[in-house]
């Protein structure tokens, strides 16, 4: 402010200023040491400080403190909510894992069951086949036995006939019973 006065109207302002300075504090050059203005500065400073103090202590500081508290509360709440959600997520994961394990167990059970069923069917089929095979084998054996018996009978008959013919040819007496028993005796052995 003072400098503007100076730059603007140099001569007059300077002279006036110098006069005031000289009158006030003997032109020391430092307005800070001009004690005539101290009362004015101190008065306005005290007014300013009281005004600032009242504004700060009544309005600004409680409001800012409330804002900071509110924010702290919000953050705490959000953290708690996040913790909750995290717990829920863990729970969901556990449930998922359990469901997965259950499903796996179920699948294994079904597979085992199916395998058992198939095994049972296969066993049954094998048993049936075995039965059939053994039945067929028995039949075959019977047929073979029959055939063998038939063959033996035929051998006996052929042998008796041959023996009879030989006996007859050799001039012996054709005794059917003796030939039969002799043939039987020879074929037995």
């Amino acid at each position, binding site marked *: *402010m003072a400098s503007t006065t100076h730059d603007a109207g140099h001569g007059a302002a300077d002279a006036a200023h110098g006069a005031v300075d000289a009158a006030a504090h003997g032109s020391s050059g430092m307005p800070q040491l*001009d004690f005539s203005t101290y009362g004015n500065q*101190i008065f306005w*400073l005290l007014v300013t400080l009281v*005004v600032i103090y009242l504004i700060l202590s009544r309005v600004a500081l409680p409001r800012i403190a409330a804002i900071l508290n509110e*924010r702290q509360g919000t953050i705490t709440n959000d953290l708690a909510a996040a913790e909750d959600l995290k717990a829920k997520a863990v729970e969901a994961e556990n449930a998922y894992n359990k469901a997965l394990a259950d499903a796996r167990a179920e699948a294994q059970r079904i597979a085992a069951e199916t395998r058992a069923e198939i095994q049972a069917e296969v066993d049954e089929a094998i048993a049936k086949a075995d039965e059939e095979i053994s039945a067929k084998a028995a039949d075959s054996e019977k047929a073979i036995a029959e055939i063998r018996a038939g063959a033996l009978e035929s051998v006996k008959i052929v042998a008796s006939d041959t023996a009879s013919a030989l006996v007859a040819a050799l001039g012996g007496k054709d005794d059917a019973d003796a030939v039969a028993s002799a043939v039987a005796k020879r074929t037995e052995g």
Partner: protein
Amino acid sequence: MGKLFFYVALALVLVSGVLFAPEHAGLAIHPMDQFGVESLFGGDHIAWYTPTNVTLWMLLAVVAIIAVLVLGSSNRGIVPSRAQSVAELAYGFIYKMVEDVTGKDAVKFFPYIMTLFMFIVTANFLGLIPMSFTTTSHFAVTAVLAVLVFVTVTITGFVLHGAKFLGLFWVSSAPLALRPILAIIELISYFVRPVSHCIRLAGNVMAGHAVLKVFAGFAGALGAGAFLPIFAITAVYALEVLVAFIQAYVFTILTCVYLKDALHPSH
């Protein structure tokens, strides 16, 4: 750093006084004129109630403080606006300082300390506006601030601890023979505190502003060579921005340290 500048400024004032005496009309540098207290509405006589440039710039400081701390926080946003961030930073900064330096039981002094800090820091920064008036460059202002702190500390100390507050001067950890001497030293340092407290602030602010003005005068006188002083002005101005905050911080933290003596004299 501040002291150095103070001396540099004084030296420059003296040199400029010799070199650019009023006879050289073209080169008149008046670095101290910016600190003159003048009536706002004319008239040479300045009574205690006269509205002066002191009144104006203190009023502007109040307006600035209201703008940042009151209007800035009026939205009460959970996510703060810029002004609200500044208000919250200032609040947190001083609150933490009071808690850390002085102690948790000093929180009742927080509005008072916040008042001091906000006034000083605002006045310092307003003073950096070209052509403005810096209220904190006056010893009358800083002395009142310092004396207020001194009185507060002394009264608080005696109210809380009675005669035990005098134990502050009786260094019980020192040998008995030394204690009276230490007591005298402690007593002197206690009473010197407000002096250094007020000179430090006003001296730093005044020195920086005077230096700026001197360089500005050189710039006006040098013509084409003015880039040198202008560069210097830029550098000093940057330093002054730093000083404006640091001095407010120093004043405030010293207030906290002094208050700690009043609240816990044994430490």
